[in-house]
């Protein structure tokens, strides 16, 4: 009793530590970084400058005034602050681009008719309350060169998408419940309203994870306890499982916290599977018969060893989410095993219902042949391609999908949906022309199409130097006659010079929300939007700035890396088991269920065209961690009835734990559940009903 109280006290302390240090991160995707540091920096800088980060966009023109006012009020109350889509640049920054206007256009702008028209416009606007704001703007740019430039640059980019969204800066830190209310209000306003922003994906993910955690944890716990009770008909082990799972949950989270400040929500949901591992460790360490203790412990250490190797290998991967899952599992396993130490006596005295059933004894050669046949079958069908998309990680709804489609179309009209960075050594226009020749880009829609030769710019500057002072003085006179007093500052057009292509793009990027050039180290990049439906041409000097393509490529790379680590883990486990079991056939038996599972998946992938994703690779690691324990224990204990009954119990519990994940809303959890449940089923049936001859299993 004292022992349990002490552990309860320790659990309380752990809970406090976790509660104080725990911080949730909703998006495991943004933690991914490219292995090329220069490109990683380039992508991050481009995205940080992006107006889409930390903001939401809403097109609310179609709303009734009452609905619009109510929505504005909800946004304001939640902490969203409206910001202008474009920050007004300084007059100097705009006028520096003046050489881009053709000389003839400038002559018209600075001509008598334009001055008269401008003066009349000024008088009309000045007559409004607050009209002095317009006069102040006119005073800083009396020829309205900024407007003329804007019109010219807008023509170049064919910016006629009909998109008039309002931009709101998101509240920080994000309050999921309150942002969720905004999201619900937006959805309730119907399909005429368009909105987009990372916050809404975060809310959907948060809700899915929260629901999955509650539902799956509760269901798996109830089912596991039920199975446990039926198989042990005692409460002691159930109590240990419950309390130990709480301890392992906390130690798992603390293990993550040691290395990472934020824990991903999806990893938190994954911890609902701990009861499955704990159950295996608890059952196999319980009721060990003194006579056969050595064989039982051989099974236990075979099982625990392969599990730990499986998770250690995952730590070598670059994916933070996978590392967190591995850390949580290792921390959880360690916590649970330590928790069991004071209860050694309870474990020794535990009893299990012994069940017996007929088994098929097969020659190890047949098991080996089956493995080879499955391998040949996979080779014949084809190894599924490894491809992980960012969408596999996000919980999406039809409502969000429709919004993404709407805004993707609008961005495509602005040639901003499919942006690439091109490493350029010489002239950017030559690099763009190459893409234009390949048919992947409409060069006329790039801002560089507005660039003019040095001689043309020099002609424009000549007009400005000669005509601007005269036109400005004339405007001041005309306005003065109407009673308006204005004193524009003289502009030093003498100091302006023709802009190179790079200078032009740099200055343009400084004015608007979209960056057009960047320099990383000694590498210089120009950004350009590719045509819709085209893909990035092959080559090491063109990088996608599209987050979807960027993260898809990173995730696919990580999946491939994880696949290799998985294979390396298998080799490590085989060596470990070979040392422990001292029999190659027993090792083959332990791994045998993996082969039909892999073949079944290859057949499924071939039939449906589904690729192998990072989630499946993690799933296979979990199959090794869980399902191979059945064969390891069975073959180590000569298929003794008591140990097989334990395998039956743990197998059912694992199926319950991962089977309930099929009900999860989050795609990661669901895919994981399906993969592991299939692997566990195959392994369980194999371990329970197929055995090697006694001379092979019994040999030590």
């Amino acid at each position: 009793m004292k022992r349990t109280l002490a552990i309860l006290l320790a659990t309380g302390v752990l809970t406090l530590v976790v509660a104080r240090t725990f911080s949730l991160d909703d998006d495991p995707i943004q933690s991914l970084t490219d292995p090329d540091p220069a490109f990683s920096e380039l992508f991050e800088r481009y995205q940080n400058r992006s107006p889409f980060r930390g903001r939401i966009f809403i097109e609310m023109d179609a709303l009734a005034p009452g609905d619009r006012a109510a929505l504005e009020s909800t946004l304001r109350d939640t902490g969203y602050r409206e910001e202008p889509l474009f920050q007004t640049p300084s007059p100097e920054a705009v006028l520096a681009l003046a050489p881009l206007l053709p000389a003839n256009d400038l002559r018209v702008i600075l001509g008598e008719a334009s001055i008269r028209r401008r003066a009349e416009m000024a008088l009309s606007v000045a007559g409004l309350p607050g009209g002095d704001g317009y006069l102040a703007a006119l005073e800083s740019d009396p020829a309205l060169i900024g407007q003329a430039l804007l019109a010219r640059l807008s023509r170049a980019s064919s910016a006629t998408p009909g998109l008039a969204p309002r931009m709101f800066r998101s509240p920080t830190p994000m309050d999921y419940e309150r942002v969720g209310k905004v999201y619900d209000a937006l959805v309730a306003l119907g399909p005429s309203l368009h909105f987009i922003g990372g916050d809404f994906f975060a809310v959907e993910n948060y809700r899915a994870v929260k629901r999955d955690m509650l539902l799956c944890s509760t269901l798996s716990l109830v089912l596991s306890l039920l199975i446990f009770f039926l198989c042990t008909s005692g409460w002691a082990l159930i109590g240990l499982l419950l309390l130990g799972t709480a301890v392992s949950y906390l130690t798992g989270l603390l293990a993550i916290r040691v290395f990472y400040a934020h824990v991903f929500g999806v990893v938190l949901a994954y911890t609902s599977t701990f009861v499955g591992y704990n159950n295996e460790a608890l059952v196999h360490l319980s009721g060990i018969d003194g006579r056969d203790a050595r064989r039982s412990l051989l099974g236990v250490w075979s099982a625990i060893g392969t599990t730990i190797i499986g998770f250690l290998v995952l730590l070598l991967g670059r994916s933070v989410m996978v590392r967190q899952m591995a850390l949580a599992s290792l921390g959880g396993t360690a916590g649970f095993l330590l928790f069991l130490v004071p209860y050694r006596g309870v474990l020794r005295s535990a009893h299990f219902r012994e069940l017996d059933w007929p088994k098929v004894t097969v020659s190890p050669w047949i098991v080996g042949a089956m493995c080879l046949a499955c391998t040949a079958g996979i080779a014949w069908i084809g190894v599924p391609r490894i491809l992980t998309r960012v969408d596999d990680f996000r919980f999406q709804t039809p409502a969000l999908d429709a919004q993404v489609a709407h805004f993707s179309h609008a961005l495509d009209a602005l040639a901003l949906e499919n942006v690439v960075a091109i490493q350029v050594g010489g002239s950017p226009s030559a690099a763009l022309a190459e893409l234009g020749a390949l048919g992947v880009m409409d060069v006329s829609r790039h801002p560089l199409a507005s660039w003019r030769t040095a001689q043309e710019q020099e002609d424009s500057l000549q007009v400005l130097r000669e005509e601007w002072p005269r036109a400005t003085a004339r405007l001041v006179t005309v306005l003065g006659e109407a009673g308006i007093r204005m004193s524009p500052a003289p502009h030093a057009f003498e100091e302006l010079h023709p802009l190179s292509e790079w200078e032009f793009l740099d200055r343009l990027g400084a004015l608007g929300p979209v960056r057009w050039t960047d320099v990383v180290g000694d590498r210089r990049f120009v950004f350009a939007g590719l045509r819709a439906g085209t893909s990035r041409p092959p080559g090491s000097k063109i990088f996608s700035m599209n987050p979807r393509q960027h993260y898809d490529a990173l995730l696919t790379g990580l999946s491939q890396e994880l696949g290799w680590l998985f294979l390396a883990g298998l080799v490590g486990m085989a060596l470990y088991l070979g040392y422990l079991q001292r029999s190659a056939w027993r090792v083959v038996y332990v791994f045998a269920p993996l082969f039909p599972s892999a073949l079944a998946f290859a057949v499924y992938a071939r039939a449906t065209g589904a690729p192998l994703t990072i989630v499946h690779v993690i799933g296979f690691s979990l199959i090794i961690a869980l399902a191979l324990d059945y064969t390891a224990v069975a073959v180590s204990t000569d298929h003794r009835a008591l140990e097989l009954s334990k395998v039956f119990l743990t197998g059912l519990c694992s199926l319950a734990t991962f089977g309930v994940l099929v009900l999860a809303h989050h795609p990661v959890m669901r895919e994981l559940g399906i993969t592991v449940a299939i692997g566990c089923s195959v392994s369980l049936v194999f371990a329970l009903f197929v055995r090697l001859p006694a001379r092979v299993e019994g040999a030590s």
Partner: protein
Amino acid sequence: MVALIIAAVLAAGPARLDPDVLRARYAGLQSLDAEVVQRKEGRFWARPFESQIRLRYTPDRIVWETLSPVHSTVTIESKRLAITDASGSSRELGATAGDPRVVALLGFFKALITVDLESLNRDFAIQYGERELVATPREGAKARLFESIRLQFDARYDLIAMELVTKTERTHLTFRALERVPPLANGGAGAPP
């Protein structure tokens, strides 16, 4: 007795503006027409500038027609601002469309003319005085252009004058021949006490 009543009336003084009555009087305004005399003075004006204006409001648009000294028409529709100058040429200030500060300003004009206290209250702190209200912008208000706004009403709560102050300009508007639909009732619901 008559002397007593006269003494009581004189002692009572002018009534303090009641926001609830004001709200009730301007709720459901369908249209408003007025002749306005505008007087402006400030940094950009060589001498005080006076203009005659015809103002027309409907829920869809506000038309600000300057009759003298130079004829021009400014039409405000939701987020649009169109100008027809003395020469008859029209122009839309489309470049500013989408800028929330401009949108806020256009919305603010509408709130001002329709005495929409809820809208004004969002960006301005309102103080009620004797037949007038004074609004000063709150921290972070969208329509920061104005430093203070003063609205004056007659005994029937009809708008009679408005004063708007920016950093460089003071504008005084005097409203005449105000016609509104529905017309102000002389008593009953929403009538001033």
